[in-house]
């Protein structure tokens, strides 16, 4: 009986894999074209570039003969997990909103809101008085709450004033960027006395706050990984349970799939819209919070003209996973794998990391018509399906 469902999941995964392959293919093609057009770049370095795109996370540098070497690279692997943490969470943010029919392009602003609240809490409460773990917890929860609040605003604008959420989110992003700049501008958390920086906020380690490593640093020596990744995975599992097992999840999905039918069935569609955006915002807030609570990351506070990329990376992560929270864990890791590849590419060849952004954008482009791809896959399988149907 559930054969159909499994087939659907399989088909989604296959469609995503095809998108990924085409994306990587396009990236390789760009590298090839650039390599062929540039007189400085040899065919060998082009081939190296292509190999790094595919296997960058396993790159271990070059051997004495100058050949690329590959193998298990604990630092890259750990950094991959570290970078995956915020984008899994922003992916969840986008995915949850999608499930209830909303396009949350405001994850960037919610991420900033979370970052701001977290840093203020983590740096303002003296750890001499309050135990560090408690400050950590307060900062994390504060970040999630701020994200939730910031997400709820476009949710409310949509629910009660019928303002398109895409537009409300875009505006709220830029408002967040300016408000955060303003708040830090008038705060005294600016990184002046450390004397090696300008325009940054203290790291949270300045106040003795950092996410515990939970032994992951032993597993992946030389990397920045910490317990945040486990929290992200835990939140993804919680979101999965919320969406697929609970009455609230049922209501959110109903609102997303057909707002009018949900209202007809007595579901409070407006409240759910706000709630869903608030949950989405909490996820994005958690992303910013965990990223900066790692202790070794610094926040550039004069952010009014730049929005954090993590917010937008959530979109491809969610799309690629068909908004399935468990799938998002994997697609988030895939995206951060790509960004590690990009770094290796910059460091080991004359190409640069932006090629991985090109690949991601191609993947998003493809996922815009993933339905077509899925249908195409379905078409090829129709015969098999029909035979299957007769069996039932």
């Amino acid at each position: 009986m559930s054969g159909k469902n499994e087939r659907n999941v399989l088909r989604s995964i296959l469609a995503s894999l095809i998108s990924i392959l085409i994306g990587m293919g396009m990236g390789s093609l760009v590298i090839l074209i650039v390599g062929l057009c540039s007189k400085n770049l040899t065919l060998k370095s082009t081939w190296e570039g292509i190999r790094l795109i595919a296997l960058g996370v396993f790159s271990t540098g070059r051997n004495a003969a100058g050949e690329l070497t590959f193998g298990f690279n604990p630092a890259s692997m750990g950094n991959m997990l570290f970078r995956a943490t915020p984008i899994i969470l922003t992916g969840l943010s986008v995915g949850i909103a999608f499930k209830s029919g909303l396009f949350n392009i405001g994850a960037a602003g919610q991420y900033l809101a979370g970052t701001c609240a977290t840093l203020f809490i983590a740096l303002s409460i003296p750890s001499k008085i309050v135990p560090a773990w408690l400050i950590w917890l307060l900062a994390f929860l504060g970040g999630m709450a701020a994200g939730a609040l910031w997400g709820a605003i476009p949710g409310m604008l949509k629910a009660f004033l019928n303002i398109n959420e895409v537009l409300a989110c875009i505006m709220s992003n830029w408002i967040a960027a300016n408000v955060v700049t303003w708040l830090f501008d008038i705060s005294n958390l600016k990184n002046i006395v450390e004397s090696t920086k300008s325009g940054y906020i203290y790291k949270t380690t300045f106040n003795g706050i950092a996410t515990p490593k939970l032994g992951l640093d032993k597993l992946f020596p030389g990397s920045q990984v910490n317990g945040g990744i486990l929290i992200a995975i835990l939140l993804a599992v919680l979101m999965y349970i919320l969406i697929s097992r609970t009455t609230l999840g049922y209501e959110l999905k109903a609102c997303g799939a057909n707002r009018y039918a949900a209202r007809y069935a007595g579901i409070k569609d407006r409240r759910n819209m706000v709630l869903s955006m608030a949950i989405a915002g909490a996820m994005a807030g958690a992303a910013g919070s965990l990223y900066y609570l790692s202790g070794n990351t610094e926040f550039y506070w004069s952010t009014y003209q730049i929005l954090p990329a993590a917010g937008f990376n959530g979109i491809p992560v969610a799309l690629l996973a068909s908004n399935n929270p468990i799938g998002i864990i994997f697609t988030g890791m895939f995206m951060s794998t790509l960004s590690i590849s990009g770094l290796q590419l910059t460091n080991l060849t004359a190409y640069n990391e932006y090629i991985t952004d090109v690949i991601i954008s191609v993947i998003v482009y493809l996922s815009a018509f993933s339905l077509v791809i899925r249908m195409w896959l379905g078409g090829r399988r129709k015969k098999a399906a029909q035979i299957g149907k007769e069996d039932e």
Partner: protein
Amino acid sequence: MEGAPPYVIEMLHITKEFPGVRANDDITLQLKHGEIHALLGENGAGKSTLMSVLFGLYKPEAGEIRKDGKTVRINDPNDATALHIGMVHQHFKLIEVFSVLDNIILGAEDTKLGFLQKKDARKKVQALSERYGLKVDLDAKVEDITVGMQQRVEILKMLYRENEVLIFDEPTAVLTPQEIGELMHIMRGLTREGKSILFISHKLNEIMEVADRVTVLRKGKHIGTVHTKETTKTELSRMMVGRPVQMVVDKEPADAGDDVLTVKDVSVPSRLYKRDAVSKVNFSVRAGEILCIAGIDGNGQTELIHALTGLERPSCGHISLCGIDITSASIRQRSLKGMSHIPEDRHKHGLVLDFTLEQNLVLQRYYEPRFRNGIFIRFDEVRSYANALIRQYDVRSGQGPITPVRSMSGGNQQKTIIAREIDRDLPLIVAVQPTRGLDVGAIEYIHGQLVAQRDAGKAILLVSLELDEVMNLSDRILVMYGGEIVGQFDPAQVSTEELGLYMAGAKRQKEEAWRV
């Protein structure tokens, strides 16, 4: 028309298939110069499809079209326009925010260097509108004018293109009786000016009144073509349905009990216009009876039902259910207090098409203790409940409870809603057009279910546009016209003709005569 070939249009042996449906099966239709030729058939008989083929919207798998005796190819609406064939679609194809004039010239614009020459166009349209008596306000926006005027705009669009063959797809379904009369008048005027008209309807009266000849379709097949002068309504309806009609539902007289739903002085504002769509309506529905609200579409039925079920707020008045005031109760509260609702628009309100069948079957009760364990849904309970309903109500689908509802047929989608609403076993069932778009078998089934519920002591409020359904099912009839209730009738003591007069606003009872 001496010397001219007898037929302006001939459609010979047309076959058109859709995935799984043969909508037109070897159909031949011939249209004479200057005649009004009606096309008659039940829902889904293939009338619109045939006309769409003629208008170039669909390509037939087989068959031939001739214009003035010459074989022609019509691949798209441009070809049809070039052959002076025009069509007024079942759903008007107008741009709501454009002015009437812009709508008329769109696609056939006169230009100089690419710039629109609206002055000339305006003169031309004014001349046409005078000649055929089609009164329109050229500068009004389409969204601000009445449906009748919108139809005149559609007709002017055809005349502006100098069409000779005019196709009307169910033009009367949306009109008030006066407007229908006007349209008939206009159509006759058009034929006098040498136009030929194809006219789709499943209303026998209209056809007998205005058409010269009738072609009857049934399930995609050509049943016959007859002169209206040489046939009767009974004969036509037999041809249309394939067996003698008189679909009478077997039912005992009602044994009405206490009031379940009471509606007092309820008014509902209109969304489109600055007036009330429903004004000061009073009635009550009693246990064990089927009360039917009859009326032509657009006379306030939808708004009234929305107010009763909580989808909209009434501007004044009181509604009570089983003695409890629910005027401002939420939808969920109404539902908990005993109202189930079979909605008018099953795709918009009734179903979450992307959910599975079982998810849709618990749409109104997923929150009940039986289906949840704290905050978690009990999937095993949902599954067994869905299986039980599917068996009991004979809902057919590809994969049972996990079928996506979107992939189910219209009849089974409706059965899903019926099963869900009836099984809740609540004292009041509000059913709005429960059989719309369904085939005879499905209709019979649903009618049977409703009567069974009535016999079980439920109060049923039925809204229907089909007079036959109204006459068959109801124990009491209220007629709505212009947002008001204009009469109450006992189906056994009133004729459809009499009801029609009330529905058209031609007659009206004094309120005291029927108000309880």
